Protein backbone atom coordinates (compact mmCIF):
# COMPACT_ATOMS: atom_id res chain seq x y z
CA UNK A 1 0.00 0.00 0.00
CA UNK A 2 2.97 2.31 0.48
CA UNK A 3 3.39 2.50 -3.28
CA UNK A 4 -0.18 3.43 -4.08
CA UNK A 5 -1.00 7.08 -4.48
CA UNK A 6 -2.21 8.59 -1.22
CA UNK A 7 -5.95 9.22 -1.03
CA UNK A 8 -6.97 12.27 -2.95
CA UNK A 9 -3.66 12.93 -4.67
CA UNK A 10 -2.00 11.50 -7.74
CA UNK A 11 1.50 10.71 -8.84
CA UNK A 12 1.23 10.98 -12.59
CA UNK A 13 -0.35 13.77 -14.64
CA UNK A 14 -3.28 11.60 -15.62
CA UNK A 15 -3.94 10.68 -12.01
CA UNK A 16 -3.77 14.31 -10.98
CA UNK A 17 -6.26 15.25 -13.68
CA UNK A 18 -8.59 12.56 -12.35
CA UNK A 19 -8.20 14.00 -8.88
CA UNK A 20 -8.99 17.47 -10.12
CA UNK A 21 -12.01 16.16 -11.97
CA UNK A 22 -13.29 14.56 -8.77
CA UNK A 23 -12.63 17.62 -6.67
CA UNK A 24 -14.40 19.92 -9.12
CA UNK A 25 -17.29 17.46 -9.26
CA UNK A 26 -17.51 17.46 -5.47
CA UNK A 27 -17.31 21.26 -5.35
CA UNK A 28 -20.01 21.52 -8.03
CA UNK A 29 -22.37 19.28 -6.06
CA UNK A 30 -21.65 21.23 -2.93
CA UNK A 31 -22.20 24.56 -4.68
CA UNK A 32 -25.54 23.32 -6.03
CA UNK A 33 -26.63 22.03 -2.63
CA UNK A 34 -25.71 25.19 -0.79
CA UNK A 35 -27.29 27.46 -3.40
CA UNK A 36 -30.44 25.62 -4.33
CA UNK A 37 -30.99 23.06 -1.60
CA UNK A 38 -32.94 19.89 -2.14
CA UNK A 39 -36.49 21.15 -1.97
CA UNK A 40 -38.87 22.47 -4.60
CA UNK A 41 -37.41 22.51 -8.06
CA UNK A 42 -34.04 23.07 -6.44
CA UNK A 43 -31.35 22.92 -9.05
CA UNK A 44 -33.71 23.88 -11.86
CA UNK A 45 -33.35 27.45 -10.61
CA UNK A 46 -29.88 27.27 -12.09
CA UNK A 47 -31.33 28.10 -15.50
CA UNK A 48 -34.92 28.96 -14.61
CA UNK A 49 -33.85 32.20 -12.97
CA UNK A 50 -31.75 33.53 -15.87
CA UNK A 51 -34.54 32.53 -18.24
CA UNK A 52 -37.14 34.48 -16.33
CA UNK A 53 -34.99 37.58 -16.13
CA UNK A 54 -34.13 37.44 -19.81
CA UNK A 55 -37.79 37.18 -20.79
CA UNK A 56 -38.57 40.24 -18.71
CA UNK A 57 -35.70 42.17 -20.24
CA UNK A 58 -36.72 41.09 -23.73
CA UNK A 59 -40.25 42.30 -23.06
CA UNK A 60 -38.93 45.62 -21.77
CA UNK A 61 -36.74 46.20 -24.83
CA UNK A 62 -39.60 45.31 -27.15
CA UNK A 63 -41.96 47.58 -25.29
CA UNK A 64 -39.43 50.40 -25.49
CA UNK A 65 -39.97 50.22 -29.21
CA UNK A 66 -36.42 49.52 -30.23
CA UNK A 67 -37.76 47.53 -33.14
CA UNK A 68 -38.93 50.68 -34.80
CA UNK A 69 -35.39 51.57 -35.75
CA UNK A 70 -34.75 48.70 -38.12
CA UNK A 71 -36.03 45.34 -39.17
CA UNK A 72 -33.80 43.49 -36.70
CA UNK A 73 -35.78 40.76 -34.95
CA UNK A 74 -36.04 42.36 -31.53
CA UNK A 75 -36.60 39.25 -29.47
CA UNK A 76 -33.54 37.52 -30.89
CA UNK A 77 -31.63 40.74 -30.35
CA UNK A 78 -32.69 40.91 -26.72
CA UNK A 79 -32.13 37.26 -25.91
CA UNK A 80 -28.67 37.13 -27.43
CA UNK A 81 -27.70 40.43 -25.86
CA UNK A 82 -28.91 39.76 -22.38
CA UNK A 83 -27.79 36.14 -22.24
CA UNK A 84 -24.31 37.27 -23.10
CA UNK A 85 -24.40 39.87 -20.34
CA UNK A 86 -25.52 37.26 -17.84
CA UNK A 87 -22.59 35.08 -18.75
CA UNK A 88 -19.78 37.50 -18.05
CA UNK A 89 -21.60 39.40 -15.32
CA UNK A 90 -22.72 36.44 -13.20
CA UNK A 91 -19.50 34.53 -13.61
CA UNK A 92 -17.26 37.44 -12.66
CA UNK A 93 -19.39 38.30 -9.64
CA UNK A 94 -19.35 34.70 -8.41
CA UNK A 95 -15.58 34.49 -8.67
CA UNK A 96 -14.79 37.71 -6.84
CA UNK A 97 -14.15 36.94 -3.17
CA UNK A 98 -15.01 33.33 -3.92
CA UNK A 99 -12.21 31.97 -1.79
CA UNK A 100 -13.28 33.42 1.56
CA UNK A 101 -16.43 31.32 2.07
CA UNK A 102 -14.52 28.29 0.82
CA UNK A 103 -11.37 28.82 2.80
CA UNK A 104 -12.11 25.88 5.05
CA UNK A 105 -12.16 23.55 2.06
CA UNK A 106 -8.66 24.57 1.02
CA UNK A 107 -7.39 22.81 4.13
CA UNK A 108 -7.90 19.58 2.25
CA UNK A 109 -4.86 18.99 0.14
CA UNK A 110 -6.63 17.76 -2.99
CA UNK A 111 -8.59 21.02 -3.15
CA UNK A 112 -6.83 23.88 -4.92
CA UNK A 113 -7.80 27.51 -5.36
CA UNK A 114 -8.30 27.11 -9.10
CA UNK A 115 -10.74 24.25 -8.48
CA UNK A 116 -13.01 26.58 -6.57
CA UNK A 117 -13.09 29.01 -9.48
CA UNK A 118 -13.53 26.26 -12.05
CA UNK A 119 -16.47 24.75 -10.19
CA UNK A 120 -18.26 28.09 -9.96
CA UNK A 121 -17.50 28.99 -13.56
CA UNK A 122 -18.74 25.67 -14.84
CA UNK A 123 -21.96 26.13 -12.93
CA UNK A 124 -22.51 29.52 -14.52
CA UNK A 125 -21.72 28.21 -17.99
CA UNK A 126 -24.19 25.36 -17.65
CA UNK A 127 -26.89 27.61 -16.20
CA UNK A 128 -26.60 30.45 -18.69
CA UNK A 129 -26.13 28.22 -21.71
CA UNK A 130 -29.16 26.12 -20.81
CA UNK A 131 -31.17 29.27 -20.26
CA UNK A 132 -30.11 30.68 -23.63
CA UNK A 133 -30.77 27.45 -25.49
CA UNK A 134 -34.11 26.77 -23.84
CA UNK A 135 -35.31 30.30 -24.45
CA UNK A 136 -34.46 30.07 -28.12
CA UNK A 137 -36.21 26.73 -28.43
CA UNK A 138 -39.28 27.86 -26.51
CA UNK A 139 -39.66 31.05 -28.49
CA UNK A 140 -39.17 29.12 -31.72
CA UNK A 141 -41.91 26.68 -30.86
CA UNK A 142 -44.43 28.93 -29.20
CA UNK A 143 -44.17 32.28 -30.86
CA UNK A 144 -43.51 33.81 -34.23
CA UNK A 145 -41.18 36.37 -32.73
CA UNK A 146 -38.08 34.46 -33.53
CA UNK A 147 -36.67 32.59 -36.48
CA UNK A 148 -34.20 29.72 -36.33
CA UNK A 149 -30.59 30.89 -36.28
CA UNK A 150 -29.12 31.19 -39.75
CA UNK A 151 -25.78 29.70 -38.79
CA UNK A 152 -25.91 27.55 -35.71
CA UNK A 153 -22.22 26.77 -35.87
CA UNK A 154 -21.38 30.44 -35.70
CA UNK A 155 -23.77 30.92 -32.81
CA UNK A 156 -22.13 28.02 -30.96
CA UNK A 157 -18.65 29.34 -31.68
CA UNK A 158 -19.53 32.85 -30.60
CA UNK A 159 -21.12 31.54 -27.42
CA UNK A 160 -18.02 29.44 -26.78
CA UNK A 161 -15.84 32.53 -27.12
CA UNK A 162 -18.20 34.45 -24.84
CA UNK A 163 -17.76 31.70 -22.25
CA UNK A 164 -13.99 31.60 -22.65
CA UNK A 165 -13.76 35.37 -22.32
CA UNK A 166 -15.93 35.29 -19.22
CA UNK A 167 -13.78 32.59 -17.68
CA UNK A 168 -10.53 34.42 -18.32
CA UNK A 169 -12.07 37.58 -16.96
CA UNK A 170 -13.45 35.82 -13.90
CA UNK A 171 -10.24 34.08 -12.92
CA UNK A 172 -8.35 37.34 -13.30
CA UNK A 173 -10.83 39.31 -11.23
CA UNK A 174 -11.16 36.50 -8.71
CA UNK A 175 -7.42 36.21 -8.14
CA UNK A 176 -7.11 40.00 -8.02
CA UNK A 177 -9.84 40.18 -5.42
CA UNK A 178 -7.69 38.01 -3.18
CA UNK A 179 -4.90 40.53 -3.44
CA UNK A 180 -6.88 43.72 -3.00
CA UNK A 181 -10.33 44.63 -1.78
CA UNK A 182 -10.54 47.34 -4.46
CA UNK A 183 -11.83 44.78 -6.95
CA UNK A 184 -15.02 44.04 -5.05
CA UNK A 185 -15.63 47.78 -4.77
CA UNK A 186 -14.86 48.83 -8.33
CA UNK A 187 -16.14 45.91 -10.38
CA UNK A 188 -19.89 46.22 -9.63
CA UNK A 189 -20.08 49.82 -10.90
CA UNK A 190 -17.88 48.86 -13.86
CA UNK A 191 -20.43 46.19 -14.73
CA UNK A 192 -23.05 48.87 -15.13
CA UNK A 193 -20.76 50.85 -17.40
CA UNK A 194 -20.15 47.77 -19.51
CA UNK A 195 -23.83 46.94 -19.89
CA UNK A 196 -24.23 49.52 -22.68
CA UNK A 197 -20.59 49.29 -23.79
CA UNK A 198 -20.59 45.54 -24.29
CA UNK A 199 -22.56 45.74 -27.50
CA UNK A 200 -25.56 43.97 -26.04
CA UNK A 201 -27.77 46.95 -26.66
CA UNK A 202 -26.63 48.13 -30.08
CA UNK A 203 -25.36 46.95 -33.41
CA UNK A 204 -22.05 48.39 -34.50
CA UNK A 205 -23.33 49.25 -37.95
CA UNK A 206 -25.81 51.68 -36.45
CA UNK A 207 -23.12 53.73 -34.74
CA UNK A 208 -21.47 56.91 -36.06
CA UNK A 209 -18.02 56.31 -37.48
CA UNK A 210 -15.84 57.58 -34.62
CA UNK A 211 -17.80 55.66 -32.06
CA UNK A 212 -17.57 52.51 -34.21
CA UNK A 213 -13.78 52.55 -34.03
CA UNK A 214 -13.74 53.12 -30.30
CA UNK A 215 -16.28 50.47 -29.53
CA UNK A 216 -14.43 47.83 -31.54
CA UNK A 217 -11.63 47.93 -28.98
CA UNK A 218 -14.00 46.22 -26.54
CA UNK A 219 -13.77 42.43 -27.02
CA UNK A 220 -17.31 41.83 -25.79
CA UNK A 221 -18.62 43.83 -28.71
CA UNK A 222 -17.01 41.39 -31.10
CA UNK A 223 -18.56 38.47 -29.28
CA UNK A 224 -22.00 40.05 -29.46
CA UNK A 225 -21.64 40.89 -33.14
CA UNK A 226 -20.53 37.36 -33.92
CA UNK A 227 -23.38 35.84 -31.94
CA UNK A 228 -25.94 37.95 -33.74
CA UNK A 229 -24.31 37.39 -37.09
CA UNK A 230 -24.94 33.70 -36.62
CA UNK A 231 -28.49 34.32 -35.51
CA UNK A 232 -29.82 36.87 -37.98
CA UNK A 233 -26.76 37.92 -39.96
CA UNK A 234 -28.72 38.55 -43.17
CA UNK A 235 -30.52 41.48 -41.55
CA UNK A 236 -27.43 43.55 -40.88
CA UNK A 237 -23.74 43.92 -41.49
CA UNK A 238 -21.74 42.44 -38.63
CA UNK A 239 -18.48 44.05 -37.58
CA UNK A 240 -16.21 41.74 -35.69
CA UNK A 241 -12.77 40.21 -35.64
CA UNK A 242 -12.78 36.74 -34.14
CA UNK A 243 -9.01 36.71 -33.78
CA UNK A 244 -9.04 39.90 -31.76
CA UNK A 245 -11.50 38.25 -29.41
CA UNK A 246 -9.43 35.07 -29.19
CA UNK A 247 -6.35 37.10 -28.36
CA UNK A 248 -8.19 38.74 -25.53
CA UNK A 249 -9.40 35.36 -24.28
CA UNK A 250 -5.89 33.94 -24.36
CA UNK A 251 -4.41 36.99 -22.71
CA UNK A 252 -6.96 37.06 -19.92
CA UNK A 253 -6.59 33.34 -19.33
CA UNK A 254 -2.83 33.58 -19.03
CA UNK A 255 -2.99 36.59 -16.76
CA UNK A 256 -5.71 35.00 -14.66
CA UNK A 257 -3.91 31.70 -14.23
CA UNK A 258 -0.67 33.46 -13.47
CA UNK A 259 -2.29 35.68 -10.88
CA UNK A 260 -4.02 32.79 -9.15
CA UNK A 261 -0.72 30.93 -8.98
CA UNK A 262 0.92 33.99 -7.42
CA UNK A 263 -1.90 34.39 -4.95
CA UNK A 264 -1.61 30.82 -3.77
CA UNK A 265 2.10 31.15 -3.25
CA UNK A 266 2.04 34.41 -1.41
CA UNK A 267 -1.17 34.57 0.45
CA UNK A 268 -2.56 31.29 1.71
CA UNK A 269 -3.21 32.41 5.25
Amino acid sequence: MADAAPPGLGRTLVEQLMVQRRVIGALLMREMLTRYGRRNIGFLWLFAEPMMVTVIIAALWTARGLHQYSDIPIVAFAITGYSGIQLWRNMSRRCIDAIEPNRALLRHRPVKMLDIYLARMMLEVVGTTTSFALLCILFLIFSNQILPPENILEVALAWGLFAWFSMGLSITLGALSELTSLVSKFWPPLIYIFYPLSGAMFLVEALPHGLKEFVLYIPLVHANEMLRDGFFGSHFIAHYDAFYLVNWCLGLSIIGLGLSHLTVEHRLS
Partner: protein
Amino acid sequence: MTVSLGEKVGIIGRNGAGKSTLIRLIGGGEKPTTGAITRTMSISWPIAFSGGFQASLTGRDNLRFICRIYGQNPSDKLSFVKDFSELGDFLDQPIKIYSSGMKARLAFAISMAIDFDCLLIDEIMAVGDAKFNAKSREELFVKRAHKAMIIVSHNMKYIQQNCSRVYLMNDGRLQHFEDVNEAIAVHKTMMAS
Protein backbone atom coordinates in the same frame (compact mmCIF):
# COMPACT_ATOMS: atom_id res chain seq x y z
CA MET B 1 11.29 16.79 12.51
CA THR B 2 10.73 13.50 10.73
CA VAL B 3 8.02 10.92 10.99
CA SER B 4 8.22 7.59 9.22
CA LEU B 5 5.52 5.14 8.23
CA GLY B 6 4.01 3.43 11.22
CA GLU B 7 5.75 5.59 13.81
CA LYS B 8 3.92 7.16 16.71
CA VAL B 9 5.44 10.51 17.57
CA GLY B 10 4.31 12.78 20.38
CA ILE B 11 4.52 16.55 20.65
CA ILE B 12 4.35 18.10 24.08
CA GLY B 13 4.83 21.61 25.41
CA ARG B 14 3.17 24.37 27.31
CA ASN B 15 0.11 26.23 26.18
CA GLY B 16 0.92 28.63 23.39
CA ALA B 17 4.17 26.89 22.48
CA GLY B 18 2.90 26.38 18.95
CA LYS B 19 1.91 22.71 18.95
CA SER B 20 -1.45 23.18 17.27
CA THR B 21 0.07 25.52 14.71
CA LEU B 22 2.64 22.89 13.89
CA ILE B 23 -0.12 20.32 13.46
CA ARG B 24 -1.98 22.66 11.12
CA LEU B 25 1.19 23.22 9.10
CA ILE B 26 1.82 19.51 8.80
CA GLY B 27 -1.77 18.88 7.76
CA GLY B 28 -1.61 21.55 5.09
CA GLY B 29 -4.14 23.91 6.61
CA GLU B 30 -1.54 26.66 6.70
CA LYS B 31 1.61 27.37 4.74
CA PRO B 32 4.90 27.93 6.57
CA THR B 33 6.47 31.37 6.38
CA THR B 34 9.94 29.86 6.08
CA GLY B 35 11.20 26.33 5.72
CA ALA B 36 9.54 23.43 3.99
CA ILE B 37 7.37 20.45 4.73
CA THR B 38 8.11 17.37 2.68
CA ARG B 39 5.36 14.81 2.58
CA THR B 40 5.88 11.34 1.23
CA MET B 41 2.76 9.85 2.73
CA SER B 42 -0.85 10.96 2.97
CA ILE B 43 -1.68 12.99 6.05
CA SER B 44 -5.06 13.58 7.63
CA TRP B 45 -6.42 16.85 8.90
CA PRO B 46 -6.34 17.20 12.72
CA ILE B 47 -8.82 14.41 13.18
CA ALA B 48 -11.40 15.92 15.51
CA PHE B 49 -11.26 19.24 13.68
CA SER B 50 -14.36 20.17 11.73
CA GLY B 51 -13.06 23.38 10.21
CA GLY B 52 -12.70 21.76 6.80
CA PHE B 53 -16.41 21.10 6.61
CA GLN B 54 -19.22 23.21 5.20
CA ALA B 55 -21.45 24.50 8.00
CA SER B 56 -24.57 24.74 5.85
CA LEU B 57 -24.39 21.16 4.64
CA THR B 58 -25.67 18.17 6.61
CA GLY B 59 -23.34 15.69 8.26
CA ARG B 60 -24.22 13.19 5.55
CA ASP B 61 -23.50 15.67 2.75
CA ASN B 62 -20.20 16.62 4.31
CA LEU B 63 -19.24 12.96 4.46
CA ARG B 64 -20.11 12.57 0.77
CA PHE B 65 -18.18 15.68 -0.10
CA ILE B 66 -15.06 14.61 1.77
CA CYS B 67 -15.24 11.10 0.33
CA ARG B 68 -15.52 12.47 -3.20
CA ILE B 69 -12.55 14.75 -2.72
CA TYR B 70 -10.39 11.93 -1.43
CA GLY B 71 -11.68 9.42 -3.96
CA GLN B 72 -13.49 7.11 -1.54
CA ASN B 73 -16.93 5.62 -1.94
CA PRO B 74 -19.31 7.38 0.47
CA SER B 75 -21.97 4.69 0.61
CA ASP B 76 -19.54 2.20 2.12
CA LYS B 77 -18.61 4.61 4.87
CA LEU B 78 -22.04 5.87 5.82
CA SER B 79 -23.03 3.18 8.31
CA PHE B 80 -19.65 3.34 10.02
CA VAL B 81 -19.82 7.10 10.40
CA LYS B 82 -23.38 6.93 11.69
CA ASP B 83 -22.46 4.33 14.30
CA PHE B 84 -19.17 5.78 15.35
CA SER B 85 -20.28 9.38 15.68
CA GLU B 86 -23.49 8.40 17.53
CA LEU B 87 -25.23 11.27 15.80
CA GLY B 88 -28.34 9.36 14.72
CA ASP B 89 -30.84 11.57 12.92
CA PHE B 90 -28.65 14.60 13.38
CA LEU B 91 -26.61 13.31 10.50
CA ASP B 92 -29.25 14.83 8.22
CA GLN B 93 -29.17 18.20 9.87
CA PRO B 94 -26.81 21.02 8.84
CA ILE B 95 -23.70 20.86 10.99
CA LYS B 96 -24.04 24.48 12.00
CA ILE B 97 -26.63 23.40 14.54
CA TYR B 98 -24.32 20.78 16.03
CA SER B 99 -22.72 21.26 19.41
CA SER B 100 -18.94 21.41 19.39
CA GLY B 101 -18.81 17.85 20.68
CA MET B 102 -21.04 16.61 17.88
CA LYS B 103 -18.92 18.36 15.28
CA ALA B 104 -15.78 16.81 16.73
CA ARG B 105 -17.32 13.33 16.74
CA LEU B 106 -18.44 13.74 13.14
CA ALA B 107 -15.01 14.99 12.09
CA PHE B 108 -13.37 12.08 13.87
CA ALA B 109 -15.70 9.57 12.26
CA ILE B 110 -15.15 10.98 8.78
CA SER B 111 -11.39 11.03 9.25
CA MET B 112 -11.55 7.33 10.05
CA ALA B 113 -13.37 6.79 6.77
CA ILE B 114 -10.44 7.98 4.67
CA ASP B 115 -7.36 5.81 4.44
CA PHE B 116 -4.59 8.17 5.53
CA ASP B 117 -1.06 6.95 6.12
CA CYS B 118 -0.51 9.40 8.95
CA LEU B 119 -3.05 10.66 11.47
CA LEU B 120 -2.78 14.00 13.22
CA ILE B 121 -4.17 13.80 16.72
CA ASP B 122 -4.54 17.06 18.58
CA GLU B 123 -5.98 16.76 22.07
CA ILE B 124 -8.79 14.42 21.18
CA MET B 125 -9.21 13.10 24.68
CA ALA B 126 -11.51 16.03 25.24
CA VAL B 127 -14.00 14.73 22.69
CA GLY B 128 -16.93 12.61 23.78
CA ASP B 129 -17.71 10.59 26.89
CA ALA B 130 -15.87 7.61 28.33
CA LYS B 131 -17.61 5.20 25.98
CA PHE B 132 -16.63 7.30 22.98
CA ASN B 133 -13.07 7.53 24.23
CA ALA B 134 -12.93 3.76 24.44
CA LYS B 135 -14.21 3.46 20.86
CA SER B 136 -11.67 6.05 19.70
CA ARG B 137 -8.83 4.15 21.32
CA GLU B 138 -9.97 1.00 19.59
CA GLU B 139 -10.23 2.69 16.19
CA LEU B 140 -6.91 4.43 16.51
CA PHE B 141 -4.53 2.18 18.38
CA VAL B 142 -5.95 -1.23 17.60
CA LYS B 143 -7.43 -1.06 14.12
CA ARG B 144 -4.93 1.50 12.88
CA ALA B 145 -1.91 0.42 14.85
CA HIS B 146 0.11 0.29 11.63
CA LYS B 147 -0.50 3.93 10.79
CA ALA B 148 1.87 6.77 11.56
CA MET B 149 0.54 9.16 14.15
CA ILE B 150 1.54 12.57 15.37
CA ILE B 151 0.00 13.08 18.77
CA VAL B 152 -0.32 16.38 20.60
CA SER B 153 -1.44 16.06 24.19
CA HIS B 154 -1.14 17.51 27.65
CA ASN B 155 -1.93 14.10 29.09
CA MET B 156 1.48 12.61 29.77
CA LYS B 157 0.09 9.15 30.43
CA TYR B 158 -1.51 9.17 26.98
CA ILE B 159 1.81 10.15 25.43
CA GLN B 160 3.66 7.51 27.41
CA GLN B 161 1.23 4.79 26.39
CA ASN B 162 1.19 5.50 22.70
CA CYS B 163 4.35 7.25 21.52
CA SER B 164 7.76 5.85 20.74
CA ARG B 165 9.45 9.25 20.37
CA VAL B 166 8.64 12.71 21.61
CA TYR B 167 9.35 16.26 20.52
CA LEU B 168 9.24 18.93 23.17
CA MET B 169 8.09 22.27 21.87
CA ASN B 170 9.37 25.38 23.57
CA ASP B 171 9.37 28.94 22.23
CA GLY B 172 8.74 27.69 18.73
CA ARG B 173 11.67 25.28 18.80
CA LEU B 174 11.48 21.50 18.79
CA GLN B 175 13.68 19.32 20.95
CA HIS B 176 13.84 15.66 20.07
CA PHE B 177 13.81 12.90 22.68
CA GLU B 178 14.30 9.22 21.93
CA ASP B 179 13.27 8.48 25.49
CA VAL B 180 9.66 9.41 26.18
CA ASN B 181 10.10 9.44 29.94
CA GLU B 182 13.05 11.78 29.71
CA ALA B 183 11.01 14.19 27.61
CA ILE B 184 8.19 14.11 30.11
CA ALA B 185 10.58 14.80 32.96
CA VAL B 186 12.11 17.79 31.19
CA HIS B 187 8.65 19.06 30.38
CA LYS B 188 7.62 18.75 34.01
CA THR B 189 10.63 20.75 35.12
CA MET B 190 9.83 23.46 32.59
CA MET B 191 6.24 23.65 33.75
CA ALA B 192 7.32 23.98 37.35
CA SER B 193 9.69 26.86 36.70
